[in-house]
């Protein structure tokens, strides 16, 4: 009975911790970092009034969005208009749930068997993430269509066409990861990288995956759907207040998810260094608490590097033209991904 209670508390703790971290800390801090880096790149200060170094700026913005007048534009299709932001949060939250954020652990002997540090342990974790992220198209389409504004519809069509094109490329890149690891369980994929990180054999698929995740999150240099100059801001033109805030929040949380995916697939998750495991460094990440904390922080650090890359790229690169964007997806990344699968399979077979 007490074991059950501990299990439930552990599960509850995982859920609260993770959602708290992601929606309460990571996303707001990401927004703050984004604006600070923007300031840095553009040689200005960025937010500096609210809290130390403007750290509480996101909180202030959140409160502002919450307190804003709930505006319902006249032409919109009400139920679908209200549904779209909620739908945008669901894939973001669901895809988080299956990402392991640390090695399986006994938490320093608290449990008999190692527990996985993920909210929902699925043996089809990778496919689940692919399936759930493919649903984020709907929030975009729904938002654009229900807004009944031509900029919104055009922005939504562009955004979703771009998302599905690059989803294909990232899907094929992931096939080569499956080929290398022989598993679709995210923890097993990390375990398979103890000898060698998949960035080395799968360098090509990484270079397919990276632009693909940038494009799927609609970030510069792939932010054409939002192209302020031509399309106002795209599919969420008609949204304001907390409804807009939800889109914003889910964008940043999806960014965190895809960064975590990139680290899990290609950079060994919480493994220490390529070819040099924690065990070789004399640290037991499964049975000691300190080892678990170290490995988890190491994983978090890798994810943060990726997130920084997102921000850095945004403020450095210009925007693509739409035909260039589609051309890149279909004529470069897709053939490269297919070729890459062919090569990896060939090398593995013979």
């Amino acid at each position, binding site marked *: 009975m007490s074991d059950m209670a501990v299990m439930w508390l552990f599960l509850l703790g995982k859920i609260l911790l993770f959602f708290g971290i992601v929606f309460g800390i990571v996303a707001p801090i990401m927004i703050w970092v984004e604006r600070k880096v923007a300031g840095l790149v553009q040689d200005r200060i960025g937010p500096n009034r609210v809290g130390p170094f403007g750290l509480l700026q996101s909180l202030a913005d959140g409160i502002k969005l*919450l*307190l*804003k*007048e*709930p*505006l*319902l*534009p*006249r*032409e919109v299709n009400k139920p679908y208009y209200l549904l779209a932001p909620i739908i945008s949060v669901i894939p973001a939250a669901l895809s988080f749930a299956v990402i392991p954020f640390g090695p399986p652990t006994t938490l320093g002997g608290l449990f008999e068997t190692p527990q996985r540090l993920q909210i929902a342990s699925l043996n089809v974790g990778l*496919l689940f993430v692919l399936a759930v992220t493919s649903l984020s198209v709907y929030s975009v389409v729904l938002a654009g269509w229900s*807004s*009944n*504004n*031509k*900029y919104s*519809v*055009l922005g939504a*069509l562009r955004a979703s*066409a771009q998302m*599905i*094109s690059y*989803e*294909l490329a990232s*899907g*094929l890149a992931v*096939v*080569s990861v*499956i*080929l290398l690891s*022989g*598993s*679709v369980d995210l923890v097993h994929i990390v375990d398979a990288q103890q000898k060698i990180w998949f960035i080395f054999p799968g360098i090509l698929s990484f270079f397919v995956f990276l632009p693909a995740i940038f494009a799927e999150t609609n970030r510069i240099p792939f932010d054409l759907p939002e192209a302020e100059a031509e399309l*106002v801001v795209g599919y969420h*033109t*008609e949204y304001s*207040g*907390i409804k807009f805030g939800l889109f914003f929040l889910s964008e940043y949380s999806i960014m965190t998810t895809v960064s975590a995916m990139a680290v899990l697939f290609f950079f060994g998750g919480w493994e220490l260094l390529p070819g040099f495991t924690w065990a070789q460094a004399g640290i037991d990440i499964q049975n000691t608490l300190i080892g678990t904390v170290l490995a988890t922080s190491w994983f978090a650090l890798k994810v943060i590097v990726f997130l920084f890359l997102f921000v850095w790229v945004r403020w450095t690169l210009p925007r693509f033209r*739409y*035909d260039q964007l*589609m*051309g890149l997806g*279909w*004529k470069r990344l*897709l*053939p490269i991904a*297919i070729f890459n*699968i*062919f090569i990896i*399979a*060939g090398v*593995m*077979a*013979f």
Partner: protein
Amino acid sequence: MTTLLGSKRYYPKKTNPYECGIPSEGAENTRFSVKFYLVAVSFLLFDIETVFLVPWALSFQKFRHQGDGPYLFVVGAVFLFVLTIGLVYEWRKGLLEWNR
């Protein structure tokens, strides 16, 4: 939440479709290019091929341990070849050109 907290001061223009401050022009229900359909349809067909590749990729190591690696490679290579024919067809036909 916002319904409780937010202020409610509507005036008619506020709820107009957004158009940079000037009144909206042109019909809202414009029809869009068929290009978007082609992107979606290519995505659908290639997505299913990807889904078919997943079981193949997953069982590759298992078959390799049983010495059936080359066999599975040929199976996958034929499938990939068919997939590539489709892609080349689209390319040659100009399906992938956005600025036709």
